[in-house]
């Protein structure tokens, strides 16, 4: 996994639910954020509407029209089995966006909660958790994911589990360090001294002040997950054929890199765009969260 910067710690938020609404409103006021959201939204729409937009099934083979260039019939040409690349790119979006967004959910939730707990309570549990985090981080990411996918078996399930088992460490790390900062703030100490329960302090003070960091990171994380899927595809461990996904399309196309470059290039375009859109969202959010 790539590790994000320790985002400049946002202005601590005193007890507030209203603050979150205002962050959302300000986010929608940020042009960067809205632009990013538009890009992601467009691609998502295209993926969702794939059955309506595309004229061919994603797996519809045609042995008489293999490896053709773009034409009126096939806007983006055909692959080695004569399948329509445009249709496959659209349908691949369904697989990949689902994986990208769904696979980060568990790490986001689990990693954040764990980070808050260990950061707030400290102690031996903290030490142990952080050692575990160090161990997982010390593994080169691909090595670990590859090994896990080997064990679990390739395909969507393997990818989900491998990501779930490895990716939470980043969230834990980010959230823990942010929690350490927030915990020491005067008004948190005051809240605690004032007799608020741990649960309430965690929920009303620590969580609102730490979760924005996790949300900013999620934006990049989705792209990293997509990339991991692509690379697993290169190693033959990704989504199983014939299900189209951008990653396996790129890796299937690599046999034709020297002859039909577009086959492996086109599926990369939506990945780049998604990456761009999410980065813009993240930038916009960071701006909003940064103290004015």
């Amino acid at each position, binding site marked *: 996994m790539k590790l994000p910067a320790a985002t400049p710690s946002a202005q601590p938020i005193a007890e507030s639910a209203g603050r979150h609404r205002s962050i959302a409103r300000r986010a929608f006021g940020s042009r960067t954020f809205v632009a990013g959201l538009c890009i992601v939204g467009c691609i998502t729409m295209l993926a969702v509407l794939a059955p309506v937009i595309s004229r061919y099934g994603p797996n519809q083979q045609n042995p008489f029209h293999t490896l053709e260039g773009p034409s009126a019939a096939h806007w983006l040409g055909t692959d080695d089995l004569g399948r329509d690349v445009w249709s496959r790119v659209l349908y691949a979006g369904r697989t990949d966006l689902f994986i990208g967004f769904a696979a980060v959910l568990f790490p986001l939730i689990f990693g954040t909660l764990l980070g808050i707990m260990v950061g707030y309570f400290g102690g031996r549990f903290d030490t142990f958790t952080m050692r575990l985090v160090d161990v997982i*981080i010390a593994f080169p990411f691909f090595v670990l994911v590859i090994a896990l996918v080997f064990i679990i078996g390739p395909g969507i399930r393997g990818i989900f589990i491998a990501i779930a088992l490895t990716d939470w460490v980043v969230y834990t790390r980010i959230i823990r360090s942010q929690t350490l900062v927030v915990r020491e703030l005067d008004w948190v100490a005051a809240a605690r001294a004032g007799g608020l329960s741990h649960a309430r302090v965690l929920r009303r003070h620590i969580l609102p002040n730490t979760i924005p960091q996790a949300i900013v990171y999620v934006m990049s994380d989705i792209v990293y997950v997509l990339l991991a899927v692509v690379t697993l595809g290169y190693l033959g461990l990704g989504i199983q054929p014939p299900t189209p996904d951008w990653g396996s399309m790129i890796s299937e196309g690599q046999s034709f890199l020297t002859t039909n470059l577009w086959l*492996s290039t086109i599926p990369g375009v939506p990945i780049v765009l998604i990456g761009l859109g999410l980065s813009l969202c993240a*930038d916009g959010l*960071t701006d909003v969260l940064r103290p004015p």
Partner: protein
Amino acid sequence: MSDTWRYVGTRLLHAIPVVFGVTVATFLLLHLIPGDPARQLVGLHASPAAVATVNRRLGLDGSLLSQFRDFLSRLLHGDTGTSFFYGVSTRSLIVSRLPVTAALVALAALFCVVITLPLAIIAAVQKDRLTDHAIRVIPLVGLGMPAFWIGILFILIFSVKLPWFPVGGWGISYSDHLRALILPALTAALGIIPLLIRSLRAGALDVFNADFIATARAKGLREGRVLFLHVTRNALIPTVALLGLNIAYLIGSTVIVERVFDLNGLGSLLLEAVGNRDFPVVEGVTLVFAVAVVLVNLGTDLVTAQLDPRIRLR
């Protein structure tokens, strides 16, 4: 200075359980992965007797627990075993492959810094103008396209069309090595450059608004000096920390990059060993990677402490 050494000592001490954890996890993962090293050695048609003999020779005939005990006791004696396939000690294999990977990672890290610095500062100076947007968007291609794709594209452009760099391989002389490493290092670096640019640009923007920059300007310094001495130096600190944090990623990406560029380093050795189920080699290389990550992280902390006197090593 003795404080620093004590710090280094403590950190190394803390690293022991981490490295140990990685090693043990590797051992267990490997034995959980389906696939039989003996079969990989003697093939589909070999007799069961042949497979059994090979298993005995490789020390794979005992229970997992006894294998684990053997593994640990070997490890404690500093012995990482003998490669199932190469028939030579894992250590000698690693020693022969390490320079390639170390040079690749070092050069990639250097590229990260050299490319990120000017681009991020320019982007920050030109905030919200076309240059800024271009600098922020274009590297995202590196984020969206996998290393194996970018690598091949680089080869097609810079080695085939424009014969500036060798197509692949490692060469003989040091200058060969350097030339051979430029494209692979660039490929590996591209994976994290967008991340770094973003961080450094944000950092630079923060620094731009800092009072001490106003102080520097009020002194009458030229803008160039303000930019390089005051802005860059301060914005660099979080970036270096981020780079250090991502060294593990860089090391991991050598697995792919070395293969695409036909470099015989630890990454390609690891990939091959995993495929062959060459347990001792996988364990050895992972150990080296883990130690490298730990050391780089320590080094990063020392460097950032050097760059930022406010940081106290504790």
